[in-house]
């Protein structure tokens, strides 16, 4: 053991170097903590995987509903601005009357376009849609009436739309008026329902993910209590002691977000084909829902945030209860 100890390090020790050096020291401290957290998570891989999976499952349900709702918006999108109206006429209307009726519809300022659909064209469309050409060919006569496909102006208020439909229905030659707005409203209502449901579930399962993170972090805290006590006794601030656990929380959150993304991707892969086939049978062609880079980033950031908040909560509660 050497003597003259105090002089030894008071003379030879380098200075801190001011604010710049302190900032560098702070950055290095965080880098060190990040590395230590990563090492801890990978060293306890089974426990970490369990936590990631639980968080991933908790996040995947609201995420899945969000994607369904996005899909519904894609379906309703083309019609949401101006749902079409189909005017079915009585059978056997004379051509002159059809022409007059067409002119009448085109003159109406509330209607942007009116296209006459003759019975033969309608039958061909129907035949193409259901894919039973042979059955249609076997028909001795065309049962379909003349029709008009109308597109109302986009700015038409709902009340005016209802009045227009009433007026169209009151025309003597009109047998039936079918508005896309009816089913569109149903889909929009369903979309709104799914949206709200996903919000509620996002809140519930977000809290769930938060609690899972908190309890996982709490376990890590318990395993490092002795270390924390020593740190406290040598003057570590609560913030300093919380830091590594916040990183744990972020790691757990990120892992959970990644698992949720994977789960949803598998779900999309499994459901994409039957869903597109189902929609195709209604003549609806939409791009399959999926992830894009910003959405994945958003999921990971949100998951990391949930992890950080959960860890913060666990630390505050546990460290406060320590008598140091």
């Amino acid at each position: 053991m050497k003597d003259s100890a105090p002089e030894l390090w008071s003379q030879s020790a380098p200075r801190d170097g001011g604010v710049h050096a302190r900032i560098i020291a702070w950055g290095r401290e965080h880098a060190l903590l990040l590395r230590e957290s990563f090492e801890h998570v990978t060293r306890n891989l089974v426990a970490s995987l369990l936590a990631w999976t639980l968080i991933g499952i908790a996040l995947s349900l609201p995420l899945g509903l969000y994607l369904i709702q996005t899909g519904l918006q894609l379906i309703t999108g083309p019609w949401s601005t101006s749902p079409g109206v189909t005017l079915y006429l009585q059978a056997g209307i004379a051509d002159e009357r059809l022409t007059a009726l067409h002119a009448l519809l085109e003159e109406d300022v509330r209607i942007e376009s009116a296209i006459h659909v003759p019975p033969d064209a309608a039958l061909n469309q129907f035949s193409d849609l259901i894919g039973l050409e042979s059955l249609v060919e076997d028909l001795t006569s065309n049962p379909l009436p003349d029709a008009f496909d109308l597109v109302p102006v986009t700015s038409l208020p709902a009340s005016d739309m209802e009045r227009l439909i009433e007026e169209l229905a009151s025309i003597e030659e009109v047998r039936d008026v079918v508005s896309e707005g009816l089913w569109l409203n149903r889909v929009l209502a369903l979309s709104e329902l799914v949206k709200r449901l996903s919000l509620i579930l996002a809140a519930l399962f977000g809290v769930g993910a938060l609690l899972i993170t908190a309890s996982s972090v709490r376990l890590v805290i318990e395993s490092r209590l002795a270390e924390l006590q020593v740190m406290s006794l040598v003057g570590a601030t609560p913030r300093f002691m919380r830091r590594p656990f916040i990183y744990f929380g972020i790691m757990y959150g990120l892992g959970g977000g990644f698992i949720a993304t994977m789960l949803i991707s598998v779900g999309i892969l499994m459901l994409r084909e039957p869903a597109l086939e189902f929609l195709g049978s209604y003549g609806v062609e939409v791009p399959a829902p999926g992830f894009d880079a910003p959405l994945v980033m958003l999921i990971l950031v949100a998951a990391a945030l949930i992890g950080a908040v959960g860890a913060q909560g666990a630390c505050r509660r546990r460290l406060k209860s320590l008598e140091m």
Partner: protein
Amino acid sequence: MYSTLATLWTRCLQATNEMFGLGVQLTEVTKMFAGRSRGALQGVSHSFEPGTITFVTGHSGAGKTTLLRLIMNQFPPTYGQVIVGDVNLATLNARQLPRFRQQLGVVFQEHHLLSARTVLDNVMLPLRVSGRSRALMESRALNALAIMGLDDKGDVFPEQLSTGEQQRVGIARALVNRPRLLLADEPTGNLDPEMSKSVMRLFREFREIGTTVIVASHDLALIEAFGAPFIELREGELVGHTRS
């Protein structure tokens, strides 16, 4: 002329050292623990002057460790007050407590080393929590280890060391921050006589640069050989002391 200047200079240094060291004032301090009818400390009043070294002696269970833990504000007294420097510890809030502790160096009886960290990391810990630069931390910690004769042990883990070596790591950690107040609880308990004397010489050197040193020890022979003032506790009561 020169001798006057030298005297003046020495006095200036002494004054600076006294300002650096933290005095400790205990006033009627009693500490009761749950489930025990008798206080671990009972009405203890004593003043530890800044820049001095004082031993606290007494048999096992006399209250030596409790006294040190009160001074480091590990828990509050049941009655009475503890003032360190000019701070009444009862007034410290959660934000002020770490800053207060960063001024202390503590040698624990049980070493309290972090088993998952290397010896060097353990010694650097007080500097790390106060946000010092890596270069300064390593330099001071390596020096502290060199002083304790552990130059080659920086990269090993505490469990790989003997009890005596662990004790020396604990001492190095307490000294690395150049504390204003050094509290040592049986610092020589696991050391051989020669090493014990070296540690005591080291503590004296710290006192000379102004650090206030309080050493809890039941080793009366060591205290007598060292010739420093002491206070004696018996069953929590202050039963005797020498002038500092």
